[in-house]
């Protein structure tokens, strides 16, 4: 669905308010008044019991209106919303905004009403916003179809929010800061239109420069990733996703009746689709203002200009923590600064013009610094010292319109307020603290990389599907949901190298297999009921001859019987013992929102204790696989430290891509792990030593 589809929602020729009311303060009245404020199109109040509201003729029902209505705003009680929607459908209404509450958020009855509404909308080809929302605003068309207390100023930010209250707060905040909007949408319960639809519309809308969203979840994860990837190449997409912690996610579930989803999956989804994640509402607002007014930088080298050393140091620290660099100035720049700045001033980055600097000096230094070709963006800091004329400094900045981003932070209270508001009114974001200016600058820099990003297509390799279905069928026949060593065919069929392995169901056979494979060998217990083999004494390493293999067999079976008497034991697996490699783990967990979430980390304690792991969504391209491997902190252990030979990272990337394809093509695999994957020195490849999986049971019912 593109712009053409939703254009009329934001630019209707006529709007009906169903449930319009004469009573002051009622939602039906507020919505009508908000519309009457600025909207140039036709407005039809609908209310069966009165003939006129606010000097407008009122109609008993939607079908009594003589012309076709583009948009109907519904504010009647939830119970009668379906019948109202039915008549809207019959009357040919294109869009409905259901403001009424009492739907899914209110329990079983409401949830059924909501499903009814969706069904009616789809039957008539209507599109629905909400229910349980504040409404929508298009300031450029004077359309305020909400019950908000204030109207948004026209601007270039498109904002959508899953929380009506956050919409209200944002409007109030924006009014104070002079921030304007191109679109303003309260998503409500997202029963029909959701973030994906609006992302597409905002991307196409020429008045929108920045897209921002407050979300508690996404409705269709894979689709979101696909759409956000396209949209973020055109416009910055800033998202606050709440429910990151256990307490937060519990609140999301309780509030919306959805699962918040794992935060790792959201991070992976956002980073693979170019979405800028803001960690708080404040940060989202900070970013919105920067993107709304500033050009994009061409690099990450930042100049800091300050009248206070301390602020400069804070900003310098923040730059490096955020992954920005401080620009080194050209000699010419330093010379020019030296010409006018006092002797005690610092001419190098951060540039300190000193506490008594005039607005004029600020302006001079700023122009010099900004024209240095090594500088990609400037952060101006001001502390209201005795001689500082904050307002004049603000005016001086406001008069500039550089081609590089310029973010200001005036640090103080009452003495900087006026200055900040001058900046706000001239389109320059003024931040209260240096760190906020820096993180916003970092967001600008990040977005530049996002816009230039080229997404590689993941490769699809030929695989032996019959082997895959054999594995699944066997498990299903045996009524098993866990896959283990017996399912190595799954790996083989996707071309993932596995260690030479044979199974045995008695000690003699085990010894015979060991002879064939060649010593030393590893022995592992085979049981559909045991997934942590080491915990029950089910793994023995480095067995060197037939005697050791036989004794290991007996003790292993006896140990397992003792620790897990209920486990079904199918025998043992004998494997070649591989040494001289480093162990890594490749895993997958199927996220409820985004599907297969791949995990990569170094084996053993690195994963368990240090949680040094990287997450990405499947499908994965080779390039993404390499960046995933390189993103763990212990990556240098793979590239070789202290003269060690590097390990075969290319082969790990290859296995990651194959696992990605395996889990992407087989949705019945709910969890999957190769642990360990033994990585050999460069050029020697890697081999899977063990695997685990959980499959969806097709015959779940008893």
């Amino acid at each position, binding site marked *: 669905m593109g712009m053409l589809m939703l254009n009329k929602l934001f630019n209707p020729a006529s709007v009906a308010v169903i449930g319009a009311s004469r009573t002051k303060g009622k939602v039906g009245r507020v919505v009508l008044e908000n519309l009457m404020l600025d909207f140039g199109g036709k407005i039809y109040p609908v209310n069966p019991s009165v003939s006129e509201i606010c000097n407008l003729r009122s109609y008993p029902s939607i079908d009594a209106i003589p012309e076709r209505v583009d948009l109907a705003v519904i504010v009647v009680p939830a119970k009668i919303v379906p019948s109202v929607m039915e008549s809207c459908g019959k009357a040919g209404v294109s869009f409905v905004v259901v403001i009424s509450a009492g739907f*899914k*958020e209110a*329990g*079983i009855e409401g*949830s059924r009403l909501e499903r009814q509404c969706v069904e009616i909308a789809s039957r008539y080809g209507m599109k629905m916003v909400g229910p349980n929302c504040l409404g929508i605003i298009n300031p450029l068309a004077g359309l305020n179809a909400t019950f908000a207390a204030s109207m948004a100023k026209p601007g270039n930010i498109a904002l959508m929010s899953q929380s009506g209250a956050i919409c209200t707060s944002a409007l109030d905040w924006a009014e104070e800061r002079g921030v304007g909007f191109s679109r303003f949408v309260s998503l409500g319960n997202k029963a029909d239109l959701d973030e994906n639809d609006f992302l597409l519309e905002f991307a196409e809308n020429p008045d929108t420069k920045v897209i921002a969203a407050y979300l508690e979840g996404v409705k269709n994860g894979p689709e979101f990733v696909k759409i956000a990837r396209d949209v973020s190449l055109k416009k910055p997409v800033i998202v606050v996703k709440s429910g990151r912690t256990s307490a937060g996610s519990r609140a999301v579930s309780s509030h919306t009746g959805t*699962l918040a989803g794992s935060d790792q999956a959201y991070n992976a989804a956002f980073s693979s689709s170019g979405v800028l994640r803001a960690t708080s509402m404040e940060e989202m607002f900070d970013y919105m203002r920067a993107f709304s007014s500033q050009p994009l930088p061409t690099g990450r080298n930042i100049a800091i200009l300050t009248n206070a050393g301390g602020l400069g140091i804070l900003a310098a620290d923040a730059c490096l923590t955020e992954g920005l660099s401080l620009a080194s100035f050209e000699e010419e720049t330093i010379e020019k600064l030296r010409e006018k700045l006092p002797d005690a001033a610092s001419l190098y980055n951060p540039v300190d013009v000193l506490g008594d600097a005039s607005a004029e000096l600020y302006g001079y230094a700023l122009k010099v610094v900004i024209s240095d070709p090594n500088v990609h963006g400037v952060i101006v800091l001001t502390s209201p010292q005795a001689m500082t004329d904050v307002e004049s400094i603000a005016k001086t900045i406001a008069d500039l319109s550089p081609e590089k981003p310029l973010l200001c932070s005036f640090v103080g209270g009452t003495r900087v307020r006026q200055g900040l508001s001058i900046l706000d009114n001239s389109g320059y974001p003024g931040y209260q603290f240096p760190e906020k200016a820096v993180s916003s600058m970092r967001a600008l820099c990040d977005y530049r990389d996002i816009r230039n990003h080229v997404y590689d297509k993941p490769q699809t390799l030929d695989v032996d599907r019959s082997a895959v279905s054999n594995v699944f069928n066997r498990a299903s026949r045996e009524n098993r949901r866990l896959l283990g060593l017996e399912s190595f065919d799954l790996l083989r069929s996707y071309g993932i190298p596995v260690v030479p392995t044979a199974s045995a169901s008695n000690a003699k056979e085990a010894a015979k297999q060991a002879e064939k494979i060649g010593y030393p060998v590893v022995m592992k217990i085979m049981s559909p009921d045991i997934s942590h083999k080491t915990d029950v004494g089910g793994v023995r390493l480095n067995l060197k001859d037939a005697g050791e293999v036989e004794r290991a067999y007996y003790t292993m079976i006896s140990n397992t019987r003792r620790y897990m008497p*209920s486990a079904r034991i199918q025998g043992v697996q004998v494997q070649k013992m591989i040494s001289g490699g480093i162990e890594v783990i490749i895993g997958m967990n199927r996220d409820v929102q985004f599907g297969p979430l791949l995990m990569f980390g170094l084996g053993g304690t690195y994963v368990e204790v240090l949680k040094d792991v990287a997450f990405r969504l499947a499908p994965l391209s080779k390039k993404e696989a390499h960046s995933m491997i390189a993103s763990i902190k212990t990556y240098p252990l793979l590239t070789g430290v202290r003269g060690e030979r590097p390990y075969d990272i290319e082969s790990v990337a290859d296995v990651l891509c194959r696992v990605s394809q395996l889990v992407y093509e087989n949705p019945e695999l709910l969890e999957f792990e190769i642990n360990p994957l033994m990585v050999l020195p460069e050029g020697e490849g890697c081999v899977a030593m063990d695997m685990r999986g959980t499959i969806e049971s097709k015959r779940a019912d008893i």
Partner: protein
Amino acid sequence: MGSILISSSEQYSGKSSLCIGLAVILKKRGFSVGYMKPVGNLLVEVDGTLSDEDSEQALQILGLADDRHYITPVILTENLIEDALHDEDGHLEERILHAYSQIAEGKDAILIEGSGGIGGGIMYNLSDPHVASILHTRILLVTRYDSIQAIDRILCDIKLIPDSQMLAGVILNEVEENDLKQVREQVVPFLKRKEIKVHGIIPKDRTLRSVSISEIVENLHGDVLSGTENLGKLVDHYLVGAMEVNSAIKYFRRTPNSVVITGGDRSDLQMAAIEAGVKALVLTGNLRPSEAVLGSADEAGVPIVLVREDTMSTIERMESLIGHIRIGQNAKLSRIVELIEDNVDIDAIISTMDIREE
């Protein structure tokens, strides 16, 4: 008139189900069948008198017309135990013999259920072999084949039977699919060499271990808040939701035929359970879930059951509910009959019972 006493190594080996199943099968073959559990050890109060839980179940399912005092003439009350400890003779043997003669009237066959394990009641001289010798009947021993140690148990148990002729044979119950081959090819011939006949090998069955959600509701005295249309679904596991939500979803997915017990305030776990497709949710502590969660549960057709008790006591109740077969529904009874018909040598049992057809 013929009879047989069904004994077991331990409690919950499947005696009751076997008695009732055999009774149904014999009835189908045209015999008039009686049932007794001479020594009642699972006390329940019914209509102002004491009875035994197994007896009541048999009475109901088989539609028996006999007096419950004859079906279970001896009930192991505190009084009776004290009498026995003071060496007082309660004339228990006579009571059993009298009851047996009453039940036998007009019957072709009587199935006698043992009490607890085979040696249970030996302090009152009422162990299963004692009762069998009073009633001149033979013993059919049921054993849960959970591991190779079941053979040890069988060999020990038959030492309690004074006369080798008294043992009619054994039935190996709840045999894991994995063990079936070994049982048929090695265990049965082994026992045969020791002159122990195996009359049946019954594989483990998921339907029987399971319990319906409506039974859970009834047992926990819960309120059903959603998903009433799916109360008939069966579950064979319960899971306790007390972990972090992302681990929970993995855990729930592995065992979809389960009921999840969690607190009413754990909306994240509730949603994880619904997403993972579990069969029902039991919310403890009388904490109502959020309305939005209820809406989702209703949409997914998942029953949410609200109970007053805390999680610990709910788990205890669930523990006794799942796995211990109470033949509440027709589905289970017909499954039991089917399993016995398919896996037990009925003719052999009939011939050991020495039923004379009229």
